[in-house]
């Protein structure tokens, strides 16, 4: 009844090609942005912003980047944690070695560093496919972990790769309190989400999707696999690298390579799969699910009034987490984004079934 597009005629090419062709969608996105920018910082407690809001935003950005590669271009990567690390440490090096570089520039340069490494490790994808490629990308993960742990130049000589940054400012404004951090991340994530949304509906995105659906056929109709696959690796690594830099600079403040280990890669892949492959909104759903679930599971015994040792509760958390993942994959293998689009289809027809 409220979500219906009849009466909205498209009379120009511009109107036909805009990102959100349905008016209700445009309004919903604006309302959502207003809520995120204004209501959340006013209402949420500092703990909530620090423990949920900021990690959610940064990991959404990383999941979005990974989704471009896995969901749109069909190249499974298990090395995204490593690319986050490259982003974080590149940005750190820029920040420390070139004093006076603005924070945003350092973050973006971190993204570019990750792009370079991503391109390098994307090269094998031209020859290796499917699960072989998935395992091969683990080479990136382990090699990068090792490099930041063992090669002192990358970490500015600090032992075991642990580094820290402080005194972050953007345009003269400090980034210190959770609210400031949250707003900074939100602004960046919003820009990147818009960019992603635009990329995937354009020429590049269509080339990626053709590559995903069947690479031989795509090559036959004139899409160059080298361009399509490497651009996917480059863009995806850029997103993931910026997310890694944000994770280090804004969320953690001080970090070591273990913050970006293989568990992070798996976590990101979970977000992409549970959220929905090939969906920008799905990356956010998946990130929200994976960020919130462990926190809820940690608190659950206390809420239920069950006394439990920490070891036991951490093992139970692991069990429930695993079981829930399997459960979600069984119930909706196409991810939460599919549930969302089904709901939207239902809403379009409501209250009449046909």
């Amino acid at each position: 009844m409220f979500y219906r597009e009849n009466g909205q005629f498209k009379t120009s090419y511009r109107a036909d090609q805009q990102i959100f062709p349905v008016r209700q969608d445009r309004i919903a996105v604006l309302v959502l942005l207003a809520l995120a920018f204004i209501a959340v910082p006013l209402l949420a407690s500092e703990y909530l912003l620090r423990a949920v809001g900021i990690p959610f935003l940064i990991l959404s950005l990383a999941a979005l980047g990974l989704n471009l590669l896995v969901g749109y271009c069909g190249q499974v990567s298990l090395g995204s944690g490593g690319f986050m690390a490259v982003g974080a440490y590149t940005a750190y090096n820029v920040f420390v070695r070139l004093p006076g570089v603005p924070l945003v520039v350092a973050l973006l340069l971190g993204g570019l560093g990750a792009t370079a490494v991503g391109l390098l490790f994307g090269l094998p994808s031209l020859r290796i496919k499917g699960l072989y490629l998935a395992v091969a990308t683990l080479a990136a993960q382990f090699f990068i972990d090792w490099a930041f742990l063992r090669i002192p130049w990358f970490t500015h000589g600090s032992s075991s790769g642990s580094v820290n940054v402080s005194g972050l400012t953007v345009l003269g404004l400090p980034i210190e309190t959770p609210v400031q951090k949250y707003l900074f991340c939100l602004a960046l994530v919003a820009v990147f989400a818009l960019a992603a949304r635009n990329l995937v509906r354009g020429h590049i995105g269509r080339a990626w999707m053709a590559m995903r659906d069947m690479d031989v056929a795509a090559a036959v109709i004139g899409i160059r696999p080298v361009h399509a696959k490497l651009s996917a690796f480059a863009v995806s690594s850029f997103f993931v690298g910026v997310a890694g830099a944000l994770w280090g600079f804004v969320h953690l403040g001080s970090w070591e390579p273990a913050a970006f280990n293989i568990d992070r890669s798996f976590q990101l892949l979970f977000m992409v799969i549970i959220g929905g492959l090939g969906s920008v909104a799905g990356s956010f759903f998946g990130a929200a699910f994976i960020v919130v679930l462990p926190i809820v599971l940690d608190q659950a015994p206390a809420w239920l009034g069950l006394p439990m040792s920490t070891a036991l509760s951490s093992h139970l958390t692991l069990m429930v987490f695993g079981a829930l993942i399997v459960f979600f994959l069984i119930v909706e293998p196409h991810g939460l984004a599919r549930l969302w689009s089904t709901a939207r289809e239902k809403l379009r027809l409501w209250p009449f079934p046909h």
Partner: protein
Amino acid sequence: MGFLLETLLGGLMAGMLYSLIALGFVLIFKASGVFNFAQGAMVLFAALAMARFAQWLPLWLGIESRMLANTLAFVLALGVMVAVAWAVERLVLRHLVNQEPITLLMATLGIAYFLDGAGQTVFGSDIYKIDLGLPKDPLLLWPRVFEGGVLVTPEDLIAAAVAAVLVALLALFFQKTATGRSLRAVADDPQAAQSIGIGLSGIWVIVWSIAGGVALVTGVIWGSKLGVQFSLSLVALKALPVVILGGLTSVPGAIVGGLIVGVGEKLSEIYLGPHIGGGIEIWFAYVLALAVLLVRPQGLFGEKIIDRV
């Protein structure tokens, strides 16, 4: 020369264990197309079950003989692994038929988390010992041929023999029995196999049970050497490059790949490590596998991948 041989032997021993884990991967992948990330968790789970049953059984039943207790514990642990296989088929695989390989892969990661948590909840999370009563004193081989001789522990030799026997038994099973033949039929072409009356779900239970059994043997060998603890579950990450190096669909590939990686790791750590910083065995196997894949994208022994439009 003696030192080099010792290194080689040590590498082969480690490689043999990688081969066993890789074997579990390959068996499951061939039969069900599932890339089973949970193999490492299954090794941990099986080893925990074995270690704890061997501890509990003498208390429950008052068995004196360690041999008997170990045997019973092994049988019980095997039963547990069959139950796990059945539950995995019934609760997970059956509902995910015809899904994307990546979805199945993530589901096995979920299973891995679950098994890690369940194993430590049920069996405890300390470091346990599996005491098989094997002799541990090192043997000195060929002291006359090489200067200083070559040191090996009989434990390692027995472990190698057990692994070899296991592989031989599996080969016999696959070649000579009706069940083995239907397993191979499913591996070749699931649809054709179904059309001649082979039930997929039964096959999956069997193949996951076999993988569970292989995991148990791996866990027992590894656990009796280094103790049963959580890090056992991370060994699977070491076996992944073995699988792609040898080829996802090849049992001989898993074995040869494991030995190559085991030896390569040890040699690189000794001869390459000092030049570029230690700890390179973390990524050496992966980079080796990557290099091999660039030449042969299907691994050393894998079936050639043919793209059709």
